[in-house]
């Protein structure tokens, strides 16, 4: 088992490295090849040639690509100097560079945004997972019944309505009409857990609506399959209570595909739920990345991309390990 986990982790590192190369090529090699000098982007509106030359030297854009990548990689692990001759700045590890726009280290921006995104994603995940899976189980058990039909309709509505519609509607209701939560904003968990949850709740609901449908339908389909399995009949033949038959014998194997999708969804959510963050005005990774893209802030875009890739890959590794825990048949001897 240890070997299996280590093997997966090594694989993850390799993929992450490939992603970093790809991101580097995409953000620094391709623009230059197309005639968009990153230094010009950095220097701002109508720069003079001297500034551009300074920026070029500072970012090391005059060096070879391999050299540039190596500096970048070193920066991530041990930090790096940016030196334009006149001004010299130290970027501590993990260094993803400085923003072109506000000169802040990219890493500190990510670190600031991460709690927002994490609160949003994990909270929503708990919500859509509990509601989605339990309503999916109920739908499967009472297939064709009233609950099943209502759940199908609700989840269809949830997945079809865009976030900026449901989000704004919810905001309108809770904030402006009923005044349940005035001025929805992010409160750090450490500052005030109750306010943290209270302010995030509308966003959780909105985000969950989007994902719940998938989990509801997936659980339902998966449960219908396992409920028809011979081992479920065996469990009933033993005289087990129906609760145990469904909650243990049928649900456990039905969770396998759900774990897979959850891993991927969580990875993506950690990259930033752009629309939801925008709608509720949270400064999470999604908001940062959309701003960075809009302002052609290459280091920030690249940093967020790498960070999101890291989460997607790690989520996949966790899924693989969870598989082995859940299902002894895929467990290596």
């Amino acid at each position, binding site marked *: 088992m240890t070997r*299996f986990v280590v*093997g997966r982790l*090594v*694989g993850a590192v390799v993929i992450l490295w490939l992603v970093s190369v790809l991101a580097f090529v995409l953000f620094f090699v391709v623009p230059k090849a197309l005639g968009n000098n990153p230094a010009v982007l950095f220097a701002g509106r109508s720069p003079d040639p001297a500034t551009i030359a300074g920026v070029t030297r500072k970012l090391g854009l005059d060096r070879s690509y391999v050299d540039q990548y190596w500096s970048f990689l070193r920066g991530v692990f041990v930090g790096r100097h940016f030196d334009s001759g006149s001004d010299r700045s130290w970027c501590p590890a993990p260094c993803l560079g400085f923003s072109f726009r506000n000169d802040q280290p990219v890493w500190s921006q990510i670190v600031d945004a991460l709690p927002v995104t994490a609160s949003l994603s994990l909270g929503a995940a708990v919500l859509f997972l509990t509601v989605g899976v339990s309503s999916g189980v109920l739908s499967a058990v009472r297939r064709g019944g009233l609950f099943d039909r209502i759940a199908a309709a609700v989840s269809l509505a949830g997945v079809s309505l865009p976030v900026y519609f449901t989000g704004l509607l919810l905001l309108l209701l809770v904030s402006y009409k009923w005044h349940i939560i005035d001025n929805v904003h992010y409160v750090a968990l450490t500052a005030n857990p109750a306010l943290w949850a209270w302010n995030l709740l509308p966003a959780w609901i909105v985000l969950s609506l989007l994902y719940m449908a998938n989990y509801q339908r997936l659980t339902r389909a998966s449960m219908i399959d396992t409920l028809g399995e011979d081992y479920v009949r065996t469990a009933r033949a033993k005289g087990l209570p129906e609760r145990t038959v469904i909650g243990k014998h049928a649900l456990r194997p039905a969770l396998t595909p759900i774990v897979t999708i959850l891993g991927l969804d969580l990875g993506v959510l950690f990259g930033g739920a752009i629309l939801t963050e925008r709608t509720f005005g949270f400064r999470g990774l999604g908001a940062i990345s959309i701003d960075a893209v809009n302002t052609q802030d290459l280091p920030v875009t690249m940093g967020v991309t790498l960070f999101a890739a890291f989460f997607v890959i790690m989520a996949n590794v966790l899924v693989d390990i969870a598989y082995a825990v859940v299902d002894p048949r895929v467990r*290596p001897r």
Partner: protein
Amino acid sequence: MTDNHPTTEDRPAATDDRPVATDDRPVATDDRPVAIDDRPVAVDELVRVDRLTKVFPAGQGTFGRRRGAGAGVRAVDGISFSIARGATLGLVGESGSGKSTTGRLLSRLLDPTAGTVTFDGRDITRLPSRQLRPLRRDIQMIFQDPYSSLNPRHTIGAIIAAPLRVQGLASDSGQAMRARVRELLELVGLNPEHYNRYPHEFSGGQRQRVGIARALATRPKLVIADEPVSALDVSIRAQIINLLDDLRAELGLTYLFIAHDLSMVRHLSDTVAVMYLGQIVEIADRTTLFEHSLHPYTHALLSAVPIPDPASTRQRDRIRLHGDVPSPRNPPSACRFHPRCWKAQDICRTEAPPLADRSPAGSLGSSPAGLADTAPTEPRGPSPTGRPDTPPPGPPDTTPAGRPGTSATGSPGGPPRHQVACHFPEERTVI
């Protein structure tokens, strides 16, 4: 019950003390010149299989996870037999015996690892895939499951016509093709007007008839039937067995009939080969095999089959084997049956018994020359190539020691030989 360990862990992992080559490379039969065609091949011999071996590579390794090389599964391990034109060879055995793999090797659905398959006088062992198409016309298969082997979206007319189209045997726009399909439907006992129906409109037995019609469309010489009736209801099985029987007579077909049901094999076959863990342990004409078998495994197998007659089935000589068939992934050394055999002696654990001739003394030389006994094993003088047919005696031998290259089966010219791979063969009445 003490020694019925079902899994492989407590069996000696002795793959290196077997006289059979166990490395991953093709066994040495592969290296010597393929001289089958030089031999005086009997005119009526349709199929000859010589030291046929199939090794499936072990484990599909992903990303740095791969099991040790050489740990392949020897699904079929150096088997030899031949089938005379118009005869039926029954292949019986339990799970893991390699009987289905043998069928797939013969039809070249799988590529042999070593050994040769000669079909109609031609070595087809290494035929490249583009040359396989004409071969597919001559060798057809019937599968176990009539539900999954027919495409549900095609009419049965299209299903039966497909091999004709592929082979270019009939023009696409065809009165001729339609007539041929009607003829085939009628041949297998279906209404020829049901040309345009879909598989789901037919019962299981009828679907198997469609499968048979499809197999016969190209007028094959050899039909490999792999458990053709196992998925069918009892009252339908007899219908299909009779159909196969009638078609053989009508069309002069040659069958390789693969089944686990021994009574059915007895009914349909001329010669029967019993397989165990990839090897043939006994082969004989059906009467000899069912009434005068010599191998303990054959005895155990026969004695385990219930007979639908309470009076006789409860009075039979009962042989109960311990445990299940071992995994072919890690078969026992020497005689593969020895861990389950009640007669096993030391030699059985150390030396693999050759598949040796046990025909009654008088019948050995009686078959007309060049007909039944084309096996290059008997001292009939040097073979035309001057190559000694059997490698010099004694280990290390690359083929099972002293094993005859072939066994003639079911040839109308003379009695097929009775061959047994056992150190202590003994007749026993078990039915």
